[in-house]
């Protein structure tokens, strides 16, 4: 700890770069998960049984299997059937599909909280079911689920550490390479933990800002 500033100069840029990687993966993963979650939640209300069952299977499979196995399936499994993805892309897809199942359950809960009359009054004015969903129902659902969706985003952020196992140079893997040459696991894992704390705290602040912005509707 004597030469803290020297050490910071040596390892700082690497940690910064790894943090950016984590940040990038998280943002992209959240985007994928919202798309998957929304599609799955709406599919569960489809008129077609096959569509409902597909969505049900997706949620059941994802929630019932370990995230790490899902990551391995995408990165190590898919090449066997000819789909080869770079680690970063495979990681985003795997974590996005994973988180999507949880987002789907959150959205489903939000949808049931909206009264039938909200849809009816829009339909009665001549809105299509799709427009009703997009402009009347989902904006209300979003406000309701914001706290749960924040929790899910924080889980996603922390899950990015799993991608160290498929050679994505994010914080955990970067720290491991340093530890391998310095034999100082304690300091470097602490550093990783602190950076994660910082990132999750920022995410929480953003979410509570959004919540406050949308909360004063009456």
């Amino acid at each position, binding site marked *: 700890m004597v030469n803290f500033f020297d050490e910071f100069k040596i390892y700082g840029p690497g940690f910064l770069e790894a943090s950016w990687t984590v940040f990038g993966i998280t943002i992209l993963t959240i985007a994928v998960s919202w798309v998957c979650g929304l599609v799955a939640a709406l599919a569960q209300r489809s008129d077609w049984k096959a569509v409902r069952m597909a969505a049900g299977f997706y949620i059941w499979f994802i929630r019932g299997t370990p995230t790490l196995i899902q990551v391995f399936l995408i990165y190590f499994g898919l090449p066997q059937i000819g789909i080869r993805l770079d680690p970063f892309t495979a990681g985003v897809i795997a974590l996005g599909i994973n988180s999507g199942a949880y987002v789907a359950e959150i959205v489903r809960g939000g949808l049931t909280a909206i*009264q039938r009359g909200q849809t009816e009054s829009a339909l009665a004015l001549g809105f299509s079911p799709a427009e009703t969903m997009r402009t009347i129902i989902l904006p209300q659902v979003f406000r309701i689920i914001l706290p749960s969706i924040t929790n899910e985003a924080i889980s996603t952020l922390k899950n990015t550490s799993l991608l160290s196992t498929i050679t994505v140079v994010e914080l955990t893997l970067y720290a491991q390479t340093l530890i391998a040459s310095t034999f100082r696991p304690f300091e470097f894992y602490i550093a990783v933990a602190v950076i994660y704390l910082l990132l999750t705290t920022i995410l929480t602040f953003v979410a509570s800002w959004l919540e406050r912005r949308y909360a004063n509707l009456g």
Partner: protein
Amino acid sequence: MSDPLLKLREIRKSFGDNEVLKGVSLEVAAGEVVSIIGASGSGKSTFLRSINALEVPQSGFMEFEGLSFDFRPESRLFPTPAQLQSLRARVGMVFQSYNLWPHMTVLENVTHAPIRLLKMPRAQAREEAEALLSRIGLYEKRHSYPARLSGGQQQRVAIARALAMKPRLMLFDEVTSALDPELVHEVLVLMASLAADGMTMLLVTHEIAFARDVSSRVLFFDKGVIAEEGSPEILRNPESERLQQFLHRILHDRVAHAVSKSSGEGAQA
């Protein structure tokens, strides 16, 4: 009578084994105010909701402003989704539970449909909405969210929201039933002024006095059919025994309610 604005023939609707509408026919001329009364479960609300196809009937025919529908599922005239939207855009509906959109201000509630569906320029939609809100006395509340409004105010905004689409026909489904008694009046006054302006209206209501004073015609629903129909005079001199009983029961409930209320107040004093 010139060509009716709305024609319904042999409308039938069941929920499972329960046949709610057993072949109801009705013609409404432009400018008419038709009140629909009847006990709960008589099919009157379902009938109203089938006019803008919020409930799609199992069979029956309908004509409205150039649209002709045959509700038998195999029919060539079964309404397409686009036709349903076109119908609903021209038929305004107001619900018992207001159903304003809580994430939009009063003004946004009123302008949302004209902007999106009539492709009206924003400035024009806003101007027209403000004129409507002035008319219903809620111009000052235009930037408030619905949760800040009383039930009566919310219901008046819901009426303005429907009027913003310039409907040819307005449907009112027990619009005062959820309101506190002291808030009923302001909504009825607004509806009466619409009727006076010549708006064609169909209303399901328990407000017998309002039906008597404002409507041009009264329908009494009983067990899925129109059991008696005529001028508001039938509310004074009902012909059928069923309507007599219904009116008696309503009147009796009112009196009993008033008596229990006044005796309650007496006990407190």
